[in-house]
């Protein structure tokens, strides 16, 4: 998978909570990646089996349709960790990690 700023930002956001469920729009807000980029990327991650997806339990929610969540797989977790580790060594991703160190959500 091509290593881009968007992928690294999303990988960092996913790895912040590796066992948790992530919503598409929530990821977009956290990382600042535009939805026109994020949703195709999520589809690619699903196709590569780095992520699995599911739907909210309709019995728990009331008055609205269920949301789709994304969860990291073990393979996905290790691959994305490798992506982030590689990116951390490349100067072009330096601003991204500096902002993260300063506590800014990307």
């Amino acid at each position, binding site marked *: 998978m091509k290593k881009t700023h968007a992928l690294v930002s999303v990988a960092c956001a996913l790895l912040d909570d590796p066992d948790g469920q992530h919503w598409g729009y929530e990821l977009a807000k956290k990382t600042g990646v535009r*939805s026109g980029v994020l*949703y*195709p990327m999520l589809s690619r991650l699903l196709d590569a089996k780095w992520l699995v997806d599911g739907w*909210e339990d309709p019995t728990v929610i009331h008055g*609205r*349709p269920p949301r789709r969540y994304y969860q990291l797989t073990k393979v996905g977790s290790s691959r994305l960790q490798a992506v982030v580790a590689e990116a951390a060594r490349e100067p072009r991703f330096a601003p991204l990690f500096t902002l993260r160190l300063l506590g800014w959500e990307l």
Partner: protein
Amino acid sequence: MISPFRDFPPDLYLLSVGLASVAIVFATVPGLLLRLIVLLWPKGHPRRAELMGEFYALGLHRRIVFVFEMLEAGLFDGLAARFVRLDSGREVPPPSVARHAELWQPPRKRSRTKRWLYKAALWSLVRVRKWWRVGIGALVLVALTTILLVLGSLGGQIAQVLSLPFAIIATIPFVRDELKRRRKSKDDDEG
């Protein structure tokens, strides 16, 4: 009463009224607009249900921004999904949809004419991709540019149609002023 719009340039006035009417449509019926946007994805694609779920989970004030953002996602992700389906012509769901097989509906059987038209479209698409060595993304961009050019040429008319009710309402002060002036001049003449 002197109308506040008396010295306002008519073109600028109509444009601002058109823009205001579009903004009002976005603000009042974002759900309806999102339902139209999700139609950009092919039938049975999980993104259709996903975006509706995300939309209703948001607070009211964030929904308008969400719809604006999804317009972009629809143009790039939704149209690309349609192109991929047209390009591959596959009868089975793509991997990203296969997990929701119950949502997938295979393409319907087409008549002979439609089948030939479909084959011709597919053939030209494959040729163009081979000759120009371009990917699906570039073809989507070309299609979008064409659509935007056509919409751009129609844009003026669309804005005028949208702004028509507001323009009619806005002329009421002018008409009222004119009627008053005429009545006054008639009274003066009679006096």
